C-alpha cells in the first residue's frame, strides 16, 4: 500500500501546517546542494528559477535550443485562480471542489486543496514578473469563464496565456542563469537516471548537438518533462514531447501512476492524410456558439449547405438537452467518435463532425462572430483552406493532455528517494480528467510554490550525496546508453521510426483511446508487443551518433513509447470501471456516461517496473475522501 504522506489535520490547514513544521536548510547551506532539473516548461523553469533564488545550485536541461520553447508555450485558454475578483462567489474551496469533481474523484484531496490555495500566489507572481494579462478599462485584471465553469476565474493573455506564463518563468530563469546560479544545458536529453543505494544520484544526458553522453551528479533530481500524449503519434503535443525521462525513472524504480488517464480534446482540426505530423487544437470556446452535427444518413455526401435541417443530426443537443454543445470535453469527444464509428462522420476520411456557426452568424452578425473567433477562423482557414464563415468547420477530437504520470507523494517525491516529478510529468492533481485552464496552474504551483518547500526536508534528512560523476555507476550508465544508441543505429532495417510510431499511434487510438473494452485492450497489448519486435529488428536510422541527428532522437523516443504504450493498455485493462478520461464500454450509465466503481477502484494505480518482458507489479494508493461527497456526473 502506497502512502501519499498527506499531512494530518483539517484540509484547510494541511499545507500551512506542513510549511510551518517542515525541516529547513539554513541559507548558507543551501549553496552546498546541487539540484538537477530536467525540463524548462512551466514546472521545470519555475522550479529551477525558484530553487536558485533560494540559493541552491541548479543545473537545468531541456531538449529544445532554448528553455523558452517548452510546450507549455502552446496553451491557449488561460490559468485558473480562486481570486474571486469578479465577486461571483468563487473561493479556494470551490476551485478545489470543481477540480476534484472534474477529475471524477480520482485525485487526492490534500494535493488539490493545496493547488487551489497557491493558485492566487501564482497570479500575483506572474503579474509582478510583467506577464501582460488582459485587463479591463479600469486597469484591473479581467477574468473569463472557461470550460463550462460557473464562475469567471480564468486569467488570460489573449490566446497566448501559456506563452506569456512560460516567458515569465523563462525570464526568472534567465536572471538566475545570468547570475550564475543556474547552469543551463539546452539541446540535452535524459538517457538515464542514476540510482545508487536507494537514492537518486544524478543523470546521464545526451548532448543532441554532438551526441556526447554527459554525466551530472546531484543531490536531488527533478523531472519536469511533460506528458506522454505523443504515444498517440498524432496529438496536440509538440514534436519533441516524449515519455523518455519519466520512463527511464520508471525503469529505475519510480512507480508510474494511472497511465491510462489521457484527455482527448473535442475541438481539434481533423486528420487530413498520412503526411500529417500533428493535430492543431482550436479553443474550446468555439462550442459556445457553434452547433455540432453530422448528416443523419451515412450515404449523404451533399455539401453541408445543401443538407436541410431535417436531415441533420445535432447529436449533442438531442442527447444532452440542458448542456447541449457545452458538455465536458470527455463527453463531447466520445460522442464525436461514436457517430463517426457509425459511419456518420464527414470529410474525406469520415473522421470529422461539423461545427456550424451559421446560426450564430444569422443571430449576431458576421462581425460579432469574427470579433470572438476571428483568429481561430483564420487559423482554420489557413490549415484546411476552407472558409468557416461560409461552410461549417470540421472538427475531431485529439489527444491533448495526460493526467497520469510518475507517482509522487505530497512532497512531489517519486518512489525513488531524491527523485521528484512536477507538472504534467506527475499524476497528482487532475485525477481522471483535467479541467480547462488548470494545467498551467498546476505546473506553476509545483514549480514556484511547492517544490521549493518540499525538497528541503529530503535534503535536510539525507545531506549531500557522496557520489560524484566519476563513480562506477555513472560510467556504467554511460556505457549502457552508448551501447543502446549504437544498437539502434545498427539495426539497418526497412522501416523508419516515424512509420512504426504511426502504427503504434493507430493501435493506441483504436484500442486505448476514447472508449476501451477488455477485448480490444488485450488485442492492443499483443499488437504493441509485435510492434516492439518490428522496431528492434526492422527500424532504420540514418547517420551517426556523433552529430545532430533528429532521426536518431526520434527513434530513441519511439522505443520508449513502444514500451510505454503497453503499460497504458495494462493499466486500462486493470481498471475495471469507467472514470473521467478512461471509459471502458462495459461500465457506462444508462445515459452513456462513465460509471465509476468507487468500492473497488477508488484508488491510484501505480506500476512498478519488473524488468524487460515481465509484467509490471501493481501497487495501490487508496483515495480517501473526507471532505467531498462522491457523486455521479450527469449532463442531461
Amino acid at each position: 500500500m502506497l502512502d501519499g504522506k498527506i499531512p494530518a489535520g483539517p484540509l484547510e490547514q494541511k499545507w500551512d501546517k506542513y510549511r510551518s513544521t517542515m525541516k529547513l536548510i539554513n541559507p548558507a547551506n543551501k549553496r552546498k546542494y546541487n539540484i538537477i532539473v530536467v525540463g524548462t516548461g512551466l514546472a521545470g523553469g519555475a522550479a529551477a528559477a525558484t530553487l536558485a533564488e533560494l540559493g541552491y545550485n541548479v543545473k537545468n536541461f531541456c531538449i529544445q535550443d532554448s528553455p523558452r520553447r517548452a510546450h507549455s508555450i502552446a496553451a491557449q485558454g488561460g490559468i485558473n485562480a480562486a481570486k474571486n475578483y469578479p465577486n461571483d462567489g468563487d473561493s479556494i474551496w470551490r476551485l478545489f471542489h470543481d477540480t476534484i469533481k472534474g477529475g471524477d474523484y480520482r485525485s487526492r484531496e490534500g494535493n488539490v486543496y493545496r493547488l487551489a490555495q497557491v493558485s492566487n500566489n501564482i497570479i500575483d507572481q506572474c503579474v509582478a514578473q510583467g506577464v501582460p494579462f488582459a485587463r479591463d478599462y479600469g486597469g484591473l485584471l479581467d477574468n473569463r469563464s472557461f470550460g463550462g465553469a460557473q464562475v469567471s476565474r480564468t486569467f488570460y493573455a489573449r490566446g497566448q496565456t501559456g506563452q506569456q506564463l512560460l516567458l515569465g518563468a523563462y525570464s526568472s530563469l534567465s536572471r538566475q542563469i545570468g547570475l550564475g546560479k543556474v547552469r543551463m544545458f539546452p539541446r540535452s536529453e535524459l538517457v538515464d537516471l542514476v540510482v545508487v543505494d536507494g537514492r537518486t544520484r544524478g543523470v546521464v544526458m545526451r548532448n543532441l548537438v554532438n551526441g556526447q553522453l554527459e554525466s551530472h551528479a546531484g543531490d536531488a533530481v527533478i523531472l519536469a518533462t511533460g506528458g506522454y500524449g505523443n504515444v498517440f503519434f498524432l496529438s496536440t503535443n509538440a514534436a519533441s514531447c516524449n515519455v523518455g525521462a519519466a520512463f527511464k525513472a520508471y525503469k529505475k524504480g519510480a512507480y508510474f501512476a494511472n497511465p491510462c488517464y489521457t484527455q482527448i480534446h473535442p475541438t481539434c482540426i481533423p486528420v487530413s492524410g498520412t503526411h500529417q505530423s500533428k493535430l492543431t487544437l482550436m479553443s474550446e470556446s468555439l462550442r459556445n456558439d457553434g452547433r455540432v452535427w453530422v448528416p443523419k444518413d451515412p450515404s449523404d455526401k451533399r455539401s453541408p449547405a445543401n443538407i436541410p435541417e431535417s436531415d441533420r443530426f445535432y447529436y449533442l443537443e438531442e442527447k444532452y438537452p440542458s448542456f447541449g454543445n457545452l458538455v465536458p470535453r470527455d463527453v463531447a469527444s466520445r460522442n464525436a467518435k461514436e457517430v463517426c464509428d457509425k459511419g456518420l462522420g464527414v470529410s474525406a476520411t469520415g473522421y470529422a463532425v461539423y461545427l456550424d456557426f451559421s446560426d450564430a452568424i444569422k443571430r449576431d452578425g458576421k462581425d460579432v462572430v469574427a470579433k470572438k473567433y476571428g483568429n481561430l477562423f483564420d487559423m482554420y482557414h489557413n490549415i484546411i483552406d476552407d472558409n468557416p464563415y461560409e461552410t461549417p468547420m470540421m472538427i475531431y477530437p485529439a489527444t491533448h493532455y495526460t493526467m497520469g504520470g510518475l507517482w509522487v507523494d505530497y512532497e512531489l517525491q517519486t518512489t525513488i528517494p531524491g527523485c521528484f516529478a512536477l507538472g504534467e510529468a506527475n499524476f497528482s492533481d487532475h485525477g481522471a480528467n483535467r479541467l480547462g485552464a488548470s494545467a498551467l496552474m498546476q505546473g506553476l504551483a509545483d514549480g514556484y510554490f511547492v517544490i521549493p518547500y518540499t525538497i528541503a526536508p529530503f535534503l535536510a534528512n539525507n545531506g549531500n550525496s557522496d557520489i560524484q560523476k566519476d563513480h562506477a555507476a555513472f560510467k556504467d550508465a554511460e556505457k549502457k546508453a552508448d551501447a543502446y544508441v549504437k544498437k539502434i543505429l545498427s539495426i539497418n532495417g526497412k522501416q523508419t521510426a516515424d512509420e512504426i510510431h504511426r502504427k503504434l499511434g493507430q493501435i493506441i487510438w483504436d484500442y486505448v483511446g476514447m472508449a476501451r473494452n477488455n477485448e480490444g485492450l488485450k488485442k492492443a497489448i499483443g499488437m504493441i508487443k509485435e510492434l516492439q519486435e518490428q522496431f528492434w529488428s526492422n527500424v532504420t536510422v540514418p547517420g551517426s551518433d556523433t552529430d545532430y541527428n533528429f532521426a536518431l532522437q526520434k527513434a530513441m523516443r519511439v522505443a520508449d513509447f513502444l514500451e510505454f504504450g503497453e503499460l497504458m493498455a495494462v493499466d486500462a485493462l486493470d481498471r475495471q470501471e469507467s472514470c473521467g478520461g478512461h471509459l471502458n464500454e462495459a461500465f457506462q450509465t444508462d445515459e452513456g456516461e462513465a460509471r465509476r466503481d468507487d468500492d473497488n477502484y477508488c484508488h491510484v494505480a501505480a506500476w512498478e517496473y519488473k524488468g524487460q518482458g515481465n509484467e509490471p507489479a501493481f501497487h495501490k494508493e487508496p483515495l480517501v475522501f473526507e471532505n467531498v461527497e462522491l457523486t455521479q456526473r450527469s449532463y442531461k
Partner: protein
Amino acid sequence: MTTQGKTINITLKVWRQKGPGVKGKLETIEAKNISTDMSFLEMLDTINEGRIVQGKEPIEFDNDCREGICGMCGAVVNGIPHGPEKAMTLCQLHMRKFKNEDIIVVEPWRARAFPIIKDLVVDRSALDKIIQSGGFVSMVAGGAPDANAIPISQNIAEKAMDAAACIGCGACVAACPNASAMLFVSAKISQLALLPQGKPEAAQRAWNMVHAMDDCGFGNCTNEKECEAACPKEISIVNIARMNREFIKAGFASHVM
C-alpha cells in the same frame, strides 16, 4: 474551394552543411506528389522519410510545436524568413501557396551570431544570452503584492502584450540586411519598460541588454524595416524606437554606467 487531394511536384534547393564551420552547399532535391494540404515542414518530413529508407541523410531542421508559437522552426524560403506569407511561421506555411514545378530555395538563418549546427539548424543561444543580461524583472517568488494592487491601463497592457508576443524565432535577425537583433531586443525592453513592474530597473535593463546584444556580434539597425515585415508575430519597429529612447535615457539621464 478546397484543394484537398491536389498534389504538386517541386524542386528544392536546400542548404546542406555537415556541421559548424564546415563549407556547405545547396543540394537539389526533387519532390514528387507533394499534397498541397501539407505544411512546409510536413513536406520536409515526407522527403526525409523517403531519404531515410533510401539510406540517405535526411535534411535537418529545427521544429517543435508546429502551431506557430514556440519559435523553434524557421528557414529562409526563396529569400524570405518563414516564407512568403505575412505573419506566419514556417510550420504554418502550407504547400498550397506553391505551384506545380516551383523551384524553392531553402536556406538557414544566416548571421555571424547564429552559427550553423547542421543543414538548416542554427544556434540561437545568443538571444538567450541577451535575455539573461536583463530581460526580466528582478523579483523572487513569494514576495509579490496582490495582482490587482497596481492598475495598468488597458492600452498599456495591450501594447506590452503586442511586444510580448515575440516568439524569439530569430526571423528578424535573418531578415535584417545587417543581421541585427534590434527587433527582438526591443520587444523585451519595450514590454518591461511599458509596465510599472518593469520600470524600477528600466535603465539598467536597457543598458545591459544593448551591450549584451552588441557583444553577441549582431549587426546594427539601419531602419530597413525588413524585420517588421518578416516577423511572424508582426512586432512593430515602434518598439525599436522605444528601446532607443530607453537606452539614451539610460546613457544620459540615469546612474547607469
